C-alpha cells in the first residue's frame, strides 16, 4: 500500500471539514467537539483539534487527509500537524473563502504562517463559497498571486462537492501516481457520499451567525444588511430584536445627520442584571449581538471586530 498525505488549512468556515468529509471513505474522525462554551447553542461543530479522513484511490494507493483546526487557541496543532502527522505530506491545500472581505489577506497570512512548510511542497489554493460570491475571480487570483510571489495552482471548488475536492487531490497526486482511474474513484465517491445542493442557501449569512455563536459569551446574533434589511437572526425574543433594530436605525440616522463627526461605529447597552446588547456597524452592514453581561466591552468589541473583519491579523483564526 502506498500512502500519501495532504494537509488542508484555511480560515474558520472556509470548508476544511466539509472538504475532507466529502471525499473520505471512513467516517471522518473530525475531532469537532462541541465547543464547550455555554454560548454555543446553535453552531453544530467547530473544528477544535483536527480533521482526518482517508480516501482509497485503488487497492494500492491511499490518501490521508488532514485538516488544521480553525481556532487560535489550537494553533499548537498547526505545528504538530506540520512537524509530525503531516510532516511528509505531498502538498497543502489552502481553502480560501471567497466571501471574505479580503481573501488575499488570508492567502498572505497562511502563506506566511506555513512558509517553511511550503518551501518543500506544493500549494493549491482552493477557492470556496464562490457560488455565493464570485468575485474576486480566477484571473484576479492569478494576478494577485503573481504580485505576492506565491507559487500556487488556483482552483475554484465547492467544498461540499466530492468531485471538486477529488479534482484538487488529483492535481496533487497525479504528478506522482500515473495509474489511477480517477473517473472510477469519482463514481464510487458519488455513490457513497452523494452530493446534493438541497441544503443550498446563502451561507454567508449563516456562517457569520455561526461564527458569532462561537465567540465567548455571545448568546445571540443578528445580521442586518443595507437598508435595514434583516438578513439573518437567531435572536428569538421579539422585544430584544425590536430594541436592536431600533438602535440600528438610530445609528444610521445619526451617521447620516452628524456625518461630520464620523460614523457611528457601535452602540452598546448594558445593565447590572441583563444581557448586554450591541450593534456594530461596518459600512453597509451591521452585526447585532446579545451577550453575557460579564463579557467586558473591549472583548466584545474585539469579537465584533473580528467578525466584521475590522481587525487585521487575528480574525483569520477567529
Amino acid at each position: 500500500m502506498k500512502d500519501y498525505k495532504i494537509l488542508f488549512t484555511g480560515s474558520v468556515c472556509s470548508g476544511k471539514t466539509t472538504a475532507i468529509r466529502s471525499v473520505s471513505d471512513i467516517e471522518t474522525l473530525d475531532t469537532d467537539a462541541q465547543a464547550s462554551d455555554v454560548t454555543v447553542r446553535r453552531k453544530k461543530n467547530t473544528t477544535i483539534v483536527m480533521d482526518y479522513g482517508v480516501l482509497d484511490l485503488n487497492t494500492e494507493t491511499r490518501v490521508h487527509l488532514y485538516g488544521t483546526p480553525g481556532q487560535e487557541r489550537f494553533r499548537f496543532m498547526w505545528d504538530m500537524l506540520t512537524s509530525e502527522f503531516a510532516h511528509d505530506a505531498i502538498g497543502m491545500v489552502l481553502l480560501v473563502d471567497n466571501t471574505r472581505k479580503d481573501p488575499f489577506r488570508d492567502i498572505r497570512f497562511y502563506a506566511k504562517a506555513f512558509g517553511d512548510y511550503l518551501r518543500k511542497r506544493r500549494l493549491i489554493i482552493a477557492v470556496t463559497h464562490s457560488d455565493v460570491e464570485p468575485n474576486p475571480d480566477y484571473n484576479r487570483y492569478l494576478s494577485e498571486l503573481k504580485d505576492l510571489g506565491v507559487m500556487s495552482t488556483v482552483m475554484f471548488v465547492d467544498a461540499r462537492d466530492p468531485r471538486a475536492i477529488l479534482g484538487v487531490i488529483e492535481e496533487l497526486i497525479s504528478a506522482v501516481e500515473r495509474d489511477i482511474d480517477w473517473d472510477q474513484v469519482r463514481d464510487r465517491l458519488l455513490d457513497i457520499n452523494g452530493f446534493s445542493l438541497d441544503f443550498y442557501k446563502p451561507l454567508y449569512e449563516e456562517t457569520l451567525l455561526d461564527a458569532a455563536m462561537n465567540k465567548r459569551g455571545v448568546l445571540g446574533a443578528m445580521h442586518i444588511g443595507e437598508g435595514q434589511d434583516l438578513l439573518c437572526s437567531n435572536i428569538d425574543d421579539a422585544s430584544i430584536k425590536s430594541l436592536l433594530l431600533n438602535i440600528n436605525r438610530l445609528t444610521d440616522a445619526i451617521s447620516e445627520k452628524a456625518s461630520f463627526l464620523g460614523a457611528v461605529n457601535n452602540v452598546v447597552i448594558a445593565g447590572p442584571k441583563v444581557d448586554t446588547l450591541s450593534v456594530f456597524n461596518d459600512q453597509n452592514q451591521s452585526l447585532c449581538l446579545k451577550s453575557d453581561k460579564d463579557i467586558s466591552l473591549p472583548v466584545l468589541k474585539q469579537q465584533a471586530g473580528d467578525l466584521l473583519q475590522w481587525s487585521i491579523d487575528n480574525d483569520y483564526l477567529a
Partner: protein
Amino acid sequence: MNELLGTIDKPNVVESSCFLEGKEVTTSSFTKANRHYETVARQTFSYIFLNVGKHKSKHNEAHLEIGDKRLSGFLLKANRVLVCLSEKETNISDVRAHIQQVQHLIAKAEVERMLA
C-alpha cells in the same frame, strides 16, 4: 451643579459631561467645540432609554462610539441621564469606575435639586 460636573470631568477619562432630562440638557460642561456631541447625546440617549423603558428592559447604561469619541449615558432614574464624552480609546470600565466613585456626589446633587 457645575461644581459637580467639574468633579465628573477628569483628564483622560471624561472630557465633558452633562445631565439630560428627557431630551433637554439641564447642566453641561460641553465646550462650544463639542456641542455637536451634546446634540447627538441628547438624541441618542433619550431615544435609547425611551425604547429600553418601552420594552421594560433593565439596561441602565448606553455607549455610543462616533468617530474618535465615545458618548456614555448613565440612566440615573426615569428620564434623567448623565452623559460623559470620552476619547474612543478610553477604557469603558475606567469611565464606569469613575462614575461609581462620584456616585454619592451625583446622588447628593440630585436630592438637592429636588429640594430646591
